[in-house]
């Protein structure tokens, strides 16, 4: 009987090894896919390298029963397990360190800066109080010298009073310093918030990476000048030119 033209013909000898090869690749791909799914599941269920090793051991035994290439694959996957587990451990350690820095050290630093600002404000007030009292005394002495027509003493008291006013002017450093400290405190608060968001990324199901880089806004009121410095001759000249007689 003649066979139908549609009937399956025996494959030529040249094609047969290739098909076997493709079949073998498909098997390997399938096995890899299955293994990766298991990896994924194991990573979800486990956190430590010890647990991972415990799970991986029976798989290695199974691999030993199979072909040489699958055994090699299992060995590679075991190494991958170990690497991933080690990475997870390090991430957990980093998370702990970040959280510690975020919770304790930065907060402490911020409090110290606030304390320094308050201390300088208090000191400045004390200096101004002392200067007010000193100026009052010098003014009295100046009047006495004027009444007794002692022109030399009068001139000295006047000069001393001017010096005291000059010192009072220098107390403006406190405002400039406190603005710089305010800026430093705001930077620390911002860093604290960013670290907090970063550590949250390591929490299960957290995946909003963009929040760390994009979603950070300082909640602290910004009533400081980050560029507050004492020497601004050029800028004052610019302002004078701008606001000069028009």
């Amino acid at each position, binding site marked *: 009987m003649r066979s139908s033209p549609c009937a399956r013909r025996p494959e030529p000898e040249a094609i047969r090894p290739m098909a076997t090869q493709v079949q073998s690749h498909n098997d390997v791909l399938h096995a890899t896919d299955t293994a990766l799914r298991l990896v994924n599941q194991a990573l979800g269920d486990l956190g430590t390298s010890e647990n991972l090793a415990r799970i991986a051991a029976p798989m290695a035994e199974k691999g030993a029963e199979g072909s040489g290439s699958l055994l090699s694959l299992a060995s590679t996957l075991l190494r991958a397990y170990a690497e991933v587990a080690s990475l997870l451990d390090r991430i957990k350690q980093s998370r702990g360190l970040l959280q510690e820095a975020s919770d304790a050290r930065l907060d402490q630093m911020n409090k110290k800066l606030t304390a320094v600002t308050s201390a300088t404000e208090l000191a400045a007030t004390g200096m101004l109080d002392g200067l007010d009292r000193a100026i009052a005394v010098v003014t009295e002495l100046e009047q006495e010298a004027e009444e007794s027509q002692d022109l030399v003493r009068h001139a000295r008291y006047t000069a001393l009073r001017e010096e005291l006013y000059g010192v009072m002017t220098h107390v*403006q450093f406190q405002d400039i310093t406190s603005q710089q400290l305010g800026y430093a405190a705001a930077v620390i608060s911002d860093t604290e918030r960013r670290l907090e968001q970063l550590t949250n990324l390591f929490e299960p199901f957290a995946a909003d990476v963009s929040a760390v880089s994009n979603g950070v806004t300082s909640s602290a009121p910004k009533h400081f000048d980050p560029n507050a410095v004492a020497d601004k001759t050029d800028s004052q000249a610019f302002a004078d030119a701008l606001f000069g007689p028009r």
Partner: protein
Amino acid sequence: MRFLVVDDSATMRRIIVNSLDRIGYTDVVEADDGATALIKFAEGGISFIITDWNMPQMSGLDFARGVRGRPDGKDIPILMVTTRSAREDILAAVEAGVNNYVLKPFTPPVLKEKIDAVLSVRAAA
């Protein structure tokens, strides 16, 4: 002439008030931020404003805009005393209606010079 001195730093307010006293101006009202200053300005009787820029609640720039937005605040002299030295900040102050600009730290003679300059321009207008 009654001055309204606006600064969140008690130290700075005190230094400005002392400086004004030294140059002959003793009638001073104080406020520690722009919002409070607007209320004090609305109470009336203010002839000259000296304001800081960086303040909580309302900045000096917003305060200047607020004053200029009022019918009784269009012509009031405003002198800004601040640490902000960037050119764009100075230009922003001009746009907000500030009449002159002094950078901290300042000396009483510089403050007097700026006050006199603003008053002389007002008198000539």
